[in-house]
């Protein structure tokens, strides 16, 4: 253990010597067999960070390849690279990111519980996740997969020459991890709230993880069945999806998107939760329209099940189905818009400070708004006919899933870092990283909207020369973005040893998690708290000149 650095400040808080990091011991065994939700959250964070850098490395190579129209890699290597990028980022980073790290750590703390309802199940879920991730990487190492993360049949079931079944098995297994986590969160939220923690006193973060868990539990089994069917067709040549064997190729797409569209909300809803915690805290104001924000999460998780076929407007669904699914897609855009309006209104008449978590949150709102608005473009029946499967769609979902979701992840990481580690990070570096990510992201992905409208299709290792200029912008942006994403790795790592001690509540925030020491003791609270007030009862800090 490092000795505390001398800062000379008398108010340096005294660290509780007993906390979840030290109480169970620091042996590898104590970590690998832990049942403490906070330690499991740390395990998730470490493994997620690993997969984030694997997926990010693939993304960097993809952008490198696209600097020239003829490409650098062979077609097969490129196809395997984007498949690796997609599978790792979607299933081993985006979907588990916020629920399994922050959700695991914070839900019990936020509702005043000692742990999750099923601690052993929680640990099993992590083992499934890691095992599945290693299986996916194994499939890559021994040769790779070239189906894309969507595994469209009959290509994946009969034509692909990659290690498809191994990859399917990996995704199948990680799906169970997701289901177990969802179950755990639902039961915990229902059964383990502290006295006085009524549903309308729950922080939005808990609500949004609750809504996410509903999707995880209901939709993931459909994915599991679908992947199993692909494996059956591939291994046993039973006609399910290939018309040559009597199957239906569109059946796969219906089943796949029935999971994978709601999965987009698995990725983004927890992000909404994080932003709804950060914005009130740094605006020193209650969240505007708390109940509307809460119910819009629930609405999204329900309507999210009814829009899957908007991925299939040019796939050969009937005209009537197209009309219905497009309308439903416009309906689901409304609750998302409500949230953006509410966050903006929360800023009104606040006392806003721009610490790093707030910069990430504002970046999130900006990028998510652009991603959401371009969602209106691709949900539009006729417009979709021109741009679907093009870079317009690539840009759109990266704005939501990377611009939005990853910004929220980084925002939450910075916001709760002091709680998790007991240390503060260097604020200046954190702000620089937030700005780099915002600008790098826009430079990378905005040109892709234009490329898509011009007609550059996705998953191309080579493209017509007239598209090169915008691709160069995009690749240049990607290198800025890569620096932005790598920076926190260094300064957060540094802060673990040299960062200032944080104290229980460095942001003067109101949630229950801030009323226990940082890092929290193993059982979270010395005495079970009683809740008497709604969340976000922020008061303005006294103005310096008023003192």
């Amino acid at each position: 253990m490092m000795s505390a650095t001398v800062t000379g400040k008398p108010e340096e808080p005294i660290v509780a010597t007993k906390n979840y990091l030290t109480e169970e011991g620091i042996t590898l065994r104590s970590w690998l067999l832990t049942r403490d939700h906070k330690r499991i959250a740390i395990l998730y964070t470490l493994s997620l960070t690993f997969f984030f850098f694997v997926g990010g490395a693939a993304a960097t190579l993809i952008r490198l390849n696209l600097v020239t129209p003829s490409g650098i890699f062979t077609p097969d290597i490129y196809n395997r690279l984007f498949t690796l990028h997609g599978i790792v980022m979607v299933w081993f980073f985006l979907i588990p990111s916020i629920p399994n790290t922050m959700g695991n750590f914070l839900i019990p703390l936020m509702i005043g519980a000692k742990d999750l309802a099923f601690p052993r199940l929680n640990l099993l879920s992590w083992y499934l996740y890691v095992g599945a991730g290693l299986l996916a990487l194994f499939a890559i190492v021994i040769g790779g997969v070239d189906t894309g993360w969507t595994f469209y049949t009959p290509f994946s079931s009969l034509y692909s020459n990659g290690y498809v079944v191994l990859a399917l098995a990996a995704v199948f297994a990680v799906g169970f991890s997701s289901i177990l986590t969802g179950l755990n969160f639902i039961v915990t939220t229902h059964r383990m709230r502290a006295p006085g923690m009524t549903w309308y006193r729950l922080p939005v973060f808990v609500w949004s993880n609750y809504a996410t868990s509903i999707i995880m539990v209901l939709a993931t089994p459909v994915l599991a069945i679908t992947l199993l069917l692909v494996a059956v067709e591939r291994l046993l040549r039973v006609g399910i999806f290939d018309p040559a064997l009597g199957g239906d190729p569109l059946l796969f797409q219906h089943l796949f998107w029935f999971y994978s569209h709601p999965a987009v909300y698995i990725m983004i809803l927890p992000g909404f939760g994080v932003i709804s915690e950060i914005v009130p805290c740094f605006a020193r104001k209650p969240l505007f329209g708390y109940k509307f924000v809460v119910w819009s999460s629930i609405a999204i998780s329900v309507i999210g099940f009814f829009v899957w076929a908007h991925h299939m407007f040019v796939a050969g669904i009937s005209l009537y189905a197209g009309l219905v699914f497009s309308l439903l897609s416009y309906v689901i855009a409304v609750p998302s818009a409500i949230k953006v309006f509410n966050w903006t209104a929360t800023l009104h008449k606040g006392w806003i400070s721009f610490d790093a978590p707030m910069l990430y949150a504002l970046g999130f709102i900006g990028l998510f708004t652009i991603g959401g608005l371009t969602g209106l473009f691709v949900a539009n029946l006729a417009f979709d006919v021109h741009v679907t499967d093009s870079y317009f769609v690539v840009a759109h979902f990266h704005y939501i899933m990377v611009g939005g979701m990853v910004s929220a992840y980084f925002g939450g990481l910075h916001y709760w870092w002091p709680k998790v580690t007991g240390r503060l990070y260097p604020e200046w570096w954190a702000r620089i990283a937030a700005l780099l990510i915002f600008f790098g992201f826009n430079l990378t992905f905005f040109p892709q909207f234009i490329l898509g409208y011009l007609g550059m299709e996705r998953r191309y290792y080579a493209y017509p020369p007239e598209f090169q200029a915008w691709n160069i912008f995009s690749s240049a942006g990607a290198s800025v973005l890569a620096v932005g994403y790598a920076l926190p790795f260094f300064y957060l790592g540094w802060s673990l040893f040299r960062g200032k001690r944080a104290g229980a509540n460095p942001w003067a925030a109101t949630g229950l998690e801030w009323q226990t020491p940082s890092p929290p003791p193993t059982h979270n609270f010395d005495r079970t708290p009683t809740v008497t007030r709604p969340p976000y009862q922020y008061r303005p800090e006294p103005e310096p000149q008023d003192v």
Partner: protein
Amino acid sequence: MGSLQLLPPTASSHAADMDWLFAALLGVSAFILLLVFGLMILFCVRYRKGSRVERGNRLGRTWRVEVAWTGLTFAAFLVLYFWGAELYVRIHSPPAEATDIYVVGKQWMWKIEHPGGQREIDALHVPVGKPVRLVLTSQDVIHDFAIPAFRIRQDAVPGRYETLWFTPTEVGEYRLFCAEFCGTLHARMGGTVVVMEPSDFQRWLDSQDPGPSLAQEGEALFRSYGCSGCHGGTSTVHAPKLEGLFGRPVPLEGGRSVIADDRYIRTSILMPKAEIAAGYPPVMPSFAGQIGEDDLLKLVAYIKSLADRTAANSQAESMERPAQ
């Protein structure tokens, strides 16, 4: 390095409509974006910590505000929805006089067949100003036929016929892509659409070695696969007559009826028990696995060519010709 292009060429009847829709979507988005970003920046500057502005009289009850902006947002969305839906329906409603061109996707090429029997690979020649209906299918995996200058695309799905139409409006050459990932050389599965003056197009057609037309080839196949044994004019088997069938409604067993289009003919050949014409015993064997997509297209083209004939003159015709 190419220049910074902003819009693709505009070369079909749909392209201008699509650009207007794009402009409308951009307009609504820009308005919302400016509103949200403008307010965010305004609030962030005005209400930053330490600024000495009036913060009294905060909005207490929020539901009126929430209902107002939810309602307005939804209304704006509905306008965009109807706009796009109307154009989508138009893109999928070809005019009656459209020429059918058959497109078969295959790893990794586009095989195109004109009604006169002319074939091309990775190229599509069309006359300017004449509506064209594409009938798409695939021989292996799912492909997607995309022509950005025409603002159209459609998946070519194995085992199905999908259709799409356009009227080219500008003479020139445009790019054609495969947009659905289909394997190793997906990125190279493209080609050129050549839009020509009608006279040039006619000259091009004549210069191609046409061979027999699709319908003529289909007629030969119709006999060699034994279809004529039951569906032919002189047959004694109680099978539906195919003359005058195409494009008309067919009553089915169970009371439903379907239009006899490409899809129906194809399904009836491969899965004769799926949609049984009312009043006929379901005795036809399935030809699934015996007829390739190419031959199916020809059979459909032949049956289509019978659309304007009646059973009577067809019978007369087959009496004149010696049976083969």
